[in-house]
């Protein structure tokens, strides 16, 4: 496992990975749903499921829309859920700007479908207990989201 603080819930172990297809709007959300069902089967509290679902969905959509496809990995410990979402897309040139609420490069078509509110990254951060993002132009984007049951 790559850099990052060991979360207080114990070092998470790899459980499963899911592919995310670029531009697949029809199937978009399926990975988040599968991840949520997985956590449900493991008996995590509704509060954890809710936060994980929001973070997973926003991250999945960003990979579908901007990241050119990638994958989501689920790591798990009894008192921690870690989602790692990565792609090999264009990366985010100005991260501070991207983290601001309301900032978006979504196309008119994407906006027509209800995306592009510029709330995705801020919402992921808000719903996680630890959040890391690694990105550079041409280097892809990697998000690490840790959620600890409260």
């Amino acid at each position, binding site marked *: 496992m790559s850099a990052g603080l060991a979360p207080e819930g114990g070092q998470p*172990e790899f*459980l499963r990975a899911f592919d995310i297809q670029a531009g697949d709007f029809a199937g978009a959300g399926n990975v988040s*749903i599968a991840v*949520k069902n997985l956590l449900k089967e*493991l*008996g995590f509290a509704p509060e954890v499921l809710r936060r994980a679902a929001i973070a997973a969905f926003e991250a999945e959509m960003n990979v579908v829309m901007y990241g050119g496809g990638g994958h989501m990995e689920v790591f798990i410990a009894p008192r921690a859920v870690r989602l790692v979402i990565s792609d090999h897309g264009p990366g985010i040139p100005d991260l501070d700007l991207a983290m601001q609420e309301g900032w978006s490069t979504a196309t008119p078509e994407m906006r027509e479908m209800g995306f592009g509110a510029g709330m995705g990254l801020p919402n992921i951060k808000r719903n996680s207990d630890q959040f890391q993002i690694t990105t550079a132009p041409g280097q892809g984007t990697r998000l690490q989201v840790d959620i600890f049951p409260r």
Partner: protein
Amino acid sequence: MAHDNHQRGGNGNGQDLPTMWIDPQACQGCVLCLKACSAKAIRVRGGVAHILPQACVNCGDCFRACPHMAVRCRTTPLEHMRRFQHPVAAASPTLFSQFGYRTTPNQILLALERLGFQQVMDMGWLCEMNSVAMEEYLLAHPELRPGISPSCPAVIRLIAMRFPSLLGNVLPILPPRVFAGKVVKERLAQSQGWDPRQVGVFHIAPCAAKMVGPHDPVVLDQPYVDGVFSFREIYGPLLQALQGLEEDHTLQKCSGAGIAWAMSGGQAAAVDVEHTLDVAGFDEVVRILEMLEAGRLRDLRFLEAHICPDGCLGGPLVVENHYRAKSVTLRQMRRFGAMSRVNRAKIKQFMADGLYDWRQEASPRPLPPLDPDTSQAIAKMKAIQSLTARLPGIECGVCGSPDCQTFAEDVILGRASEDLCPFTYQRGGPQPAPAGRQTVTVKDLVDKLGLEVAAGAGGLGREVKGGYISDLLSDVMANAQTGAVWLTIQAHQNVVAVAVLKELAAVILVGGRAPAEETVAKAEQEAIPVLTTPQGAFDLAGRLHDLGL
């Protein structure tokens, strides 16, 4: 069509009693129902299919799939209307679609009257009223997004089990069938001077999911509906009653707006709020509920969801082909017009009077996690993943579980043994049965001794290792051997608990005793076969001995 001795099911003990059950005598042990079940609630064990009550939503897909008529619906026998001095019919408006283009709703309602119902409710009309009530509720609660129609009990059950966070979205407006019962018992009975205990309200339904009882997560603390008659059973008598019918009075009040409730989309068209959505069919409903739970579809105000394809006219107990039923419904909608004559002020008054109120909220019934302890659950999930990877993935169902993934779960959770898979079996080399000893299963006893299976068919594959006769529970707890069949006259539910704790093979109720309803429910849940026989314990023990036990 076969019936259980079950009428009301409302024993109030919260036990799950599925409205479908599988007759072990008729079941061929094939994989058709196993494969048809979207809820993955069926297992074939010991050559017999059985339903896991805690996972079943009563969608009826197993009933549709079985070519051997082994899947039975627990509906109420028609004779039960004679148990009441004042039987009342409340037939789903889907009934209007079952007799072709020429037969009008009014004629069908009159024919019901001819069958001996003292009062025949025009449920098309009550459905129209219900659309207004749901709309008023939505307008008064703009924060509710979306309100979900409570009309399909299988959908409500699905929500309670798999989407408990959406239960708060279910509109707290009594669905038409329950409303009908309430109005009859709280208003009509009084005005007619009927003894309320002598009033029996019967819903006539295209599915068994509407069977009232504790399996309905929307438990009402007072049974307003006394039974559910199946379309299939009432169809013949109705056809006869329609012959030479004189149309001398009018019972029909509904317009096309009420008739449309038979189809998916009928409610969404009538409930006049911005952004409505109708969805039908198990997998499609799951998909939409998943989207809702993921926080999508935020603009939606009203959701109409049916477990059956096309809505109620696709119900498992309909008689008419559902495409033709749809054609008839569309014709009737045109003929009677979409303009509803429901008086909105009156509905508002009913709502203010609490006539539409639930007595109790629907309660969540989430599927249990793999283990209550998260570390254990993680370990089990890993074990399931590694076993799944070793399975062939051809989803043949030969093991008796619906697919490889579910089989792996069953194995890790101790509900199946790994060698049931013909492929892992081959790889490991066949394991010959221990020589010199013939194993006897519960099913063998049923076949050879002509015993009746009253419940718990899921456990017919259990091996029988001996027998024990006693009517004292503590004696059995202290002395019975694992794998024994227990011969007793005790028919109450604690018998099943003892059988589970002592890991007995089966319970045989001797001397013609029948199990209590709670016993049946518990036995189904635990897959402990409860067998009955008119023979006495002594005679039966002799015959068991002859079989080598």
